[in-house]
């Protein structure tokens, strides 16, 4: 039975949805607005909404004080490389779990997920020591590996869910048609799972981009990504709200834009399998 909404109900729902949406977006909007204020206006009481002197001086100051491009580049490299590496490892893993499951497959999947329940700080010390030993501290390579490992369970889970939707007959047909494992994954499985793989990649780029615990603890100057860039502005020597806001805006802008353009893909990917 199709649900019919009266125009009044529809209007109410629209208002409610916009209210909720704006409420959630407000902190980000406020940050962006604050980044265009002077430091004095940023802490003005009562707060100024739009009637202030719009200025770009915070951005100039931030750019002058720290090299934004270097942090941006680190963020791009670390999130991109960790996602790529993760997908390369997760595709064969998810393939085997989805198409040749064993008695232990469910247990392995749950165990992988359970690693996400461990507080990260619990393994900080051993990983820190390993990083010192291997000379990986403050390197992009080290951070790429750690972030890849942290997100790997999610990548495997997501791909596993997508692969499960693919009829095994089609893969068997490929085998009968002479495809070896590589050809089967490359020409048949991957193209069919492409929407799923794309949303997995997107989500993981975002997760890796936003990852703050490991990036802050394992980097100093060389490999520090944008999360470290923001953190460097919450200094103890006084509050520079406007500059901090400018830095935050610069840090979140790339991922916000990426998310905006891929929202359709993301929503489809995240709700995939939920409704059938």
């Amino acid at each position, binding site marked *: 039975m199709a649900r019919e909404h009266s125009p009044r109900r529809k209007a109410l729902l629209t208002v409610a949805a916009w209210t909720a949406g704006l409420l959630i977006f407000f902190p980000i909007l406020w940050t962006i607005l604050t980044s265009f204020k002077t430091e004095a206006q940023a802490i003005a009481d009562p707060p100024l909404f739009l009637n202030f002197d719009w200025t770009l001086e915070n951005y100039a100051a931030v750019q002058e004080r720290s090299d934004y491009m270097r942090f941006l580049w680190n963020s791009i490299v670390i999130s991109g490389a960790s996602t790529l590496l993760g997908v390369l490892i997760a595709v064969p893993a998810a393939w085997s779990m989805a198409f040749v499951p064993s008695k232990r497959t469910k247990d392995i999947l749950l165990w992988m997920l359970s690693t996400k329940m461990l507080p990260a700080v619990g393994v900080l010390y051993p990983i820190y020591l390993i990083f010192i030993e291997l000379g990986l501290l403050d390197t992009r390579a080290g951070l790429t590996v750690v972030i890849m490992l942290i997100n790997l369970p999610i990548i495997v889970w997501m791909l596993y869910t997508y692969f499960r939707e693919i*009829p095994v*007959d*089609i893969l*068997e*047909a*490929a*085998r*009968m*048609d*002479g*495809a*070896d494992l590589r*050809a089967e994954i490359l*020409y*048949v499985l991957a*193209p*069919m799972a*492409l929407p799923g793989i794309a949303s997995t990649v997107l989500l993981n780029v975002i997760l890796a981009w936003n990852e703050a615990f490991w990036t802050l603890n394992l980097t100093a100057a060389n490999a520090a990504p944008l999360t470290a860039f923001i953190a460097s502005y919450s200094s103890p020597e006084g509050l520079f709200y406007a500059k901090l806001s400018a830095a935050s805006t610069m840090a979140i802008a790339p991922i916000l834009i990426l998310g905006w353009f891929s929202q359709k893909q993301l929503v489809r990917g995240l709700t995939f399998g939920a409704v059938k």
Partner: protein
Amino acid sequence: MGRIVLEQVAKRFGDAEVIPALDLEIEDGEFAVFVGPSGCGKSTLLRLIAGLEDVSGGRILIDGADATQMAPARRGLAMVFQSYALYPHMTVRKNIAFPLRMAGLDKAEIERRVQSAAAALNLTDYLDRRPGQLSGGQRQRVAIGRAIVREPAAFLFDEPLSNLDAALRVGMRLEISELHKRLRTTMIYVTHDQVEAMTMADKIVVLQAGRIEQAGSPLELYRAPRNRFVAGFIGSPRMNFIEGEEAGRRGAFAIGVRPEDIALSREPAPGAWEGVVGVAEHLGSDTFVHVHETGLAETITVRVSGETPCAHGDRVWLTPREDAIHRFDAQGLRIA
């Protein structure tokens, strides 16, 4: 060439024995049909031959070479799946070309073979469409096209017609039979439909619980079923089975009479079985009369050629053709 020999081939899933060790020979160019009720292991047997499942014991020989451990792709067999299993992201052309691409043929040769397969299967106009834009029958043709371009040693069909509607099914059945006559390539065809088995096969292999109950030509199985299971499975409507005195009189535990081997009369006849008509199905060409209250079996079905006036509640007398009666012992085996 496509002679397939199974030697003591067995399959277990964990502790469950799906196929106890069995032997089977399929000659080059033969059309073999595996038939049986669902869960009888016919599809599993086909998948063992294809290499999609590993055997738990025994050997599979294809043209004399031991293929038991070979990957599916190396066995030189082509398979048509019940679900068609087309590649949804590829056009018809690419679907048909896929096995040739995997075999590393050059582009011109691939195109030539795709065109000739498409022409043979009336698919030329659809080459640039995707499977999603085709009807069930067209999809099935694409699946067959993908199988024939490879010029395989044998074709394996896994219930290929069960997703089609009745009219289309008859048409495709004929197409596959003609294809076999034309190519003379070994075909192994799995179905649960005994009509498909009877009409298409050179050799029918009747399976039950993973065992081969009988293997032979359709008419051999029809005329001399080895046991009650085969006798009941082959032939439509089913053979009538009668136990007790009537069987004992003929030196058997049970006797079987096919519906077409019973004469029906409206008047009493000497030695005839008396009964009351439950349902009469008038097909025009034949009349199937289901008779109750004979005291022999719950229902006895009679097939009368042409139309015969007969309705529910009519009293009728049935006379079996004595030379067409099949006799079975207490174990269900045929008494010669």
